[in-house]
């Protein structure tokens, strides 16, 4: 490798590390993106200079087509669709890794360490490819979002994975048995699909983080196969990031990896017919506005429902009006609110809500007792007190936002249908709880209107 190329790779590795370091805080994060871009530019330029690269037509065509798709994807994608975009980009990254591994395999006979790395790269690549496509389909609601389960599903899934792994091991032991390569590729593609079939929307944050990790590891193993340490480092950084995020998500739900992947959380439980109708107190948006106006501290708890209703701008308006009236407004963000890590923060930032108003679970929980009112917008399980009190509940032990400790709780909700996981929420039946039925955007508009009317 020419010295220039080595230099560009080393510089790129340093820049990638700096990019992640600067990502730690909002003040330096954009500098991090710049560092990452520069690193990528150096790596690509260095690679184009390598003497093995002689034919540029296909490469330039790929750059052109990729940019033609990538630029609109970045600018036209609404922020509410960020989970889907993330899922599809994991699919693209994994597909690239798998195809490169496949091309390397058929280029010339491989054996030993390189073959082993290729096999793992291709296994991870193909299973992450179809798994991410499935996640994309579920998030985009092309596919039903509810988990699909059948008897013996886990055994079938694990058998498919074991068969893929066995084909890989056989191939490494007998490098001339090239038939094993397409077999393991197809099995990996199949396993990716089957892995996501039983996953429901509430588990998407964990699964997306996990697929992120796999896509990174596939790039690392490509680095092993190509003897390229830049790929090894970049892949390891991405793999570590996905791993940490999925651990954070699992902790926020008090569940294990195994439980997320094989537990089929959120399936419809068939428990004795219609649940009994219990009385709830409902209220009109005008009453809710009056309560908020009289409050000193209001805490807003956003959830996936806010994203679905695209209600973040109405929340921003409410925040402005209340702030002007001297009411202190804070936002309580549960780590698994939404469909990917950090989803709510991005939506609220999009609506121009200052990020120092957004508080994490541990930070905000002691403040609920002082809050005059809590407004829950499209969140459900993350404020369900059953997680603290009812050991028979599927979400028992999950750290929740203590919304029930506030003086008044207001919940904007479409209807009394139980939420995604089909778990009854005691919060709705409490005496201090007011239910505001309707579409989140419409209800918030009404509240804003009546706040405006009262201030003449």
């Amino acid at each position, binding site marked *: 490798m020419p010295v220039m190329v080595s230099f560009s790779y080393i510089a790129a590795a340093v820049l*990638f*590390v700096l*990019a*992640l370091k600067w*990502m*730690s805080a*909002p003040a330096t*994060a954009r500098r991090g993106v710049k560092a990452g*871009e520069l690193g*990528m530019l150096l790596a*690509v330029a260095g*690679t*184009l200079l390598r003497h*093995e*690269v002689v*034919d540029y037509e*296909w*490469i330039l065509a*790929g*750059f052109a*087509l990729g940019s033609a798709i*990538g630029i609109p994807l*970045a600018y036209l994608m609404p922020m509410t669709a960020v989970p889907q*975009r*993330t899922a599809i*980009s994991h699919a*693209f*990254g994994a*597909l*690239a*890794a798998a195809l490169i591994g*496949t*091309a390397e395999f*058929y280029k010339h006979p491989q054996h030993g*360490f390189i073959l082993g790395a290729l096999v793992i790269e291709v296994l991870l690549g193909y299973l992450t490819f179809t798994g991410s496509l499935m996640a994309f389909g579920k998030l985009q609601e092309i596919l039903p979002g509810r988990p699909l389960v059948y008897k013996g599903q886990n055994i079938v899934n694990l058998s498919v994975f074991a068969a893929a792994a066995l084909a890989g091991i056989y191939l490494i032991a007998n490098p001339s048995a090239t038939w094993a390569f397409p077999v393991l590729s197809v099995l990996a593609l199949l396993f990716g699909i089957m892995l996501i079939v039983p996953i429901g929307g509430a588990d998407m944050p964990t699964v997306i*983080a996990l697929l992120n990790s796999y896509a*990174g590891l*596939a*790039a690392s193993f490509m*680095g092993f196969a*190509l*003897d390229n*340490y830049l*790929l*090894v480092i*970049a*892949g*390891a*950084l991405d*793999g570590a990031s996905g791993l940490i*995020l999925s651990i954070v998500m699992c902790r926020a739900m008090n569940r294990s990896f195994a439980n997320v992947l094989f537990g089929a959380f959120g399936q419809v439980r068939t428990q004795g017919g219609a649940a009994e109708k219990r009385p709830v107190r409902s209220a009109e948006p005008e009453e809710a506005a009056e309560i908020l106006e009289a409050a000193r501290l209001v805490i807003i708890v956003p959830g996936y429902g806010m994203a679905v209703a695209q209600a973040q701008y109405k929340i921003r308006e409410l925040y402005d009006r209340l*702030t*002007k009236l001297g009411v202190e407004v804070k936002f309580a*963000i549960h780590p698994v609110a939404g469909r990917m*890590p*950090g989803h709510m*923060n991005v939506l609220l930032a999009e609506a*121009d809500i*200052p990020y*120092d108003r957004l508080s994490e679970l541990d930070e905000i929980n002691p403040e609920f007792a002082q809050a005059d009112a809590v407004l829950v917008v499209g969140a459900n399980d993350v404020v369900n007190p059953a997680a603290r009190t009812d050991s028979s509940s599927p979400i028992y032990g999950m750290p929740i936002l203590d919304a029930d400790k506030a003086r008044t709780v207001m919940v904007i909700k479409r209807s009394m249908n139980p939420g995604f996981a089909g778990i009854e929420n005691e919060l709705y039946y409490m005496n201090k709880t007011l239910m505001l039925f309707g579409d989140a955007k419409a209800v918030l508009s009404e509240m804003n209107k009546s706040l405006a009317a009262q201030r003449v």
Partner: protein
Amino acid sequence: MPVHELGIYVFILAAFLGLELIRRVSPLLHTPLMSLTNAISAISVVGAILIAGEENASTFSRVLGFIAVTTATINVVSGYLITDRMLKMFKKQERKP
């Protein structure tokens, strides 16, 4: 094979470094973090270029290389752009209420 052994050392050290760095990232930024790392892992474009641009490659290899260059480029381009678009939105409160 000392060369491969070295690769494994590099992987382990980079993974530990990654774990330490990511642990410090505020949960506020977890979504842009994921799109940034996704763009970084599109470094596989390096492998794709080597496959697509090789001398006397088979058509099979060229086509796979071309698809890989395309999908990796999509991730590089859209990953960095959307991360920056998201980060631009994060603002501190500038006025006293």
